[in-house]
């Protein structure tokens, strides 16, 4: 509104004033009129909210008519993005790591120093020019050049041959449909989820089998570490401001990166091929996710039995924020939250399902129908049951999803009966799919 010439007064709670100021700066404003109210506003009684309004009304009037900016410019603007500054430092490897951490240039884990020589070597992995700006990363609005992709790749332990993949990942997570700004500043424990398809899985040693999301997976870990280095260092999304994660998750340190286990996919058609890509294409799929959950079904023998337990997970994951009858193709709204879900099916689970459901579409239809929850389990105000559903009461089982388009299936993992269910952050429009350029 300020850009349009209309003054504003923004009411923010004590705990969120820091985020408000960061957001203000990221859009170019050096100062704004804020009215601070005690935290929280959400989940308190009507009486308390009205009391907060009564207490702050005089300040709102004052700010509306008497406020003047105390700062007129934001420091540090106008510098060219390339070449990046070179820093000379004298010390041990340990003290170098300490310096990086204190400057918010690392996440607290050790980094590999991005020396000019190491970065130059890394840049041999791409023909893109090092001065190309590939993303302006919110909320800090730092300019991520190809040179910095290489630098952060070095820091994370990536290799030159990973550069096309790193650039594809950046292209995916920077797409508006991902909503990087929202998902990196939320109170929720969100994490980037990156799924890889194509021959690149074998070429680069991307793990898609036993423990692919665990330790000892050097390529997956390096790629995941890179993603969060980009977000926290260039994007500035560090807790407590502007990253407001109430508790956070470790996936905010090393993003979830896995390859699809295409060889053990009984439906043969990979996730990427299902969405129009060729089997020979290398494809990155990215979405911001709330924490996933596990399906540990060891006793279902029929496909429908296993899909029943998976449907329970699909219906209840990210509980408290999910709407009913969510529509995949419509954008986020109060009553259209968390509108799809990913099933990472272990090969053994996939085989059990495939025996009775040789068609993947039939699997999706089954899960969309069975992923139901009692009306009482939906949080107030976010489940709007359509008229055509008919009469219902608080115990009526209400579908989570309006159509099978919301169910996404990837086969991943090794031996064992352990699948995972990952829901997207509430404002994510769709999983973003990007072709890896050579």
């Amino acid at each position, binding site marked *: 509104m300020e850009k349009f010439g209309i003054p504003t007064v923004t009411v923010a709670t004590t705990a969120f004033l820091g985020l408000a100021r960061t957001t203000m700066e990221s859009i170019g404003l050096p100062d704004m009129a804020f009215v601070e109210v005690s935290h929280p506003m959400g989940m308190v009684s009507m009486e308390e909210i009205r009391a907060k309004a009564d207490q702050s009304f005089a300040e709102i009037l004052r700010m509306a008519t008497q406020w003047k900016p105390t700062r007129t410019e934001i420091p540090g603007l106008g510098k060219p993005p390339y070449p990046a500054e070179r820093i000379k*430092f004298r010390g041990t490897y340990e003290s170098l790591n300490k310096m990086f951490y204190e400057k918010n240039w690392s996440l607290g884990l050790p980094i590999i120093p991005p020396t000019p020589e190491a970065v130059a070597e890394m840049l041999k992995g791409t023909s893109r020019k090092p001065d190309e700006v590939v993303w302006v990363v919110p909320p800090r609005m730092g300019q991520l050049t190809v040179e910095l992709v290489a630098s952060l790749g070095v820091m994370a332990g990536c290799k030159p041959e990973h550069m096309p993949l790193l650039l594809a990942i950046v292209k995916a997570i920077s797409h508006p449909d991902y909503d990087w700004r929202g998902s990196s500043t939320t109170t929720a424990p969100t994490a980037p989820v990156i799924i890889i398809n194509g021959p690149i899985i074998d070429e680069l040693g991307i793990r898609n089998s036993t423990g692919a999301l665990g330790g000892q997976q050097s390529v997956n870990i390096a790629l995941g570490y890179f993603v969060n280095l980009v977000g926290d*260092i260039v994007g500035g999304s560090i807790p407590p401001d502007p990253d407001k994660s109430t508790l956070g998750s470790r996936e905010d340190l090393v993003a979830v990166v896995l390859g699809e286990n295409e060889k053990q996919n009984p439906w043969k058609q990979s996730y990427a091929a299902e969405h129009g890509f060729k089997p020979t294409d290398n494809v990155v799929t990215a979405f911001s996710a709330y924490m996933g959950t596990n399906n540990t079904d060891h006793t279902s023998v029929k496909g429908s039995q296993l899909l029943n337990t998976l449907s329970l997970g699909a219906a209840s994951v990210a509980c408290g924020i999910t709407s009913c009858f969510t529509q995949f193709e419509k954008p986020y709204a109060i009553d259209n939250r968390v509108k799809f879900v990913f099933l990472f099916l272990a090969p053994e689970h996939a085989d059990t399902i495939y025996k009775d459901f040789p068609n993947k579409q039939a699997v999706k239809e089954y899960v969309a129908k069975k992923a139901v929850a009692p009306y009482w389990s939906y949080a107030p105000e976010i489940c709007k049951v359509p008229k055509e559903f008919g009469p219902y009461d608080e115990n009526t089982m209400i579908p989570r999803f309006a159509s099978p388009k919301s169910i996404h299936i990837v086969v991943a993992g090794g031996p064992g009966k352990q699948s995972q269910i990952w829901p997207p952050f509430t404002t994510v429009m769709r999983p973003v799919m990007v072709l890896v350029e050579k």
Partner: protein
Amino acid sequence: MGKRNFLRSLWIGPLLFGLLALPATVLAKEVIQEWEVINPAGVLAIKPVKPAPRITSLEGKTVILRWNGKHNGNNYLERIAELFAEKRPGVKVIKVYEVDKSTIKISGSNAESARIAKVIKDLQADIVIASQAD
């Protein structure tokens, strides 16, 4: 033993003793070195924006109340609207979240923020009071 060997043993012996007696950590101490590294943070790409000109009185003005969908934000603004009616009856208050429900959201992108801003501007707003909640 010749005189030369004897003299040599006088300093080799203590030297060997000294080396073997040194704590292992002294020998294994990390080396201080000169580093040159790239600053990975990236420079900012922000176009400076001047805050909008301020109003000095609310009398006769149009105040827009904007809710981003967070719980209780609307309840807070409802009370603010009541207080305006009681204490500043000369102010026109418009709850944009009742006029256009598509504005009830966290915008999620610059484009969407601009769209919401246009909706508000088209209401002839003189000032916007926004509740960001959480």
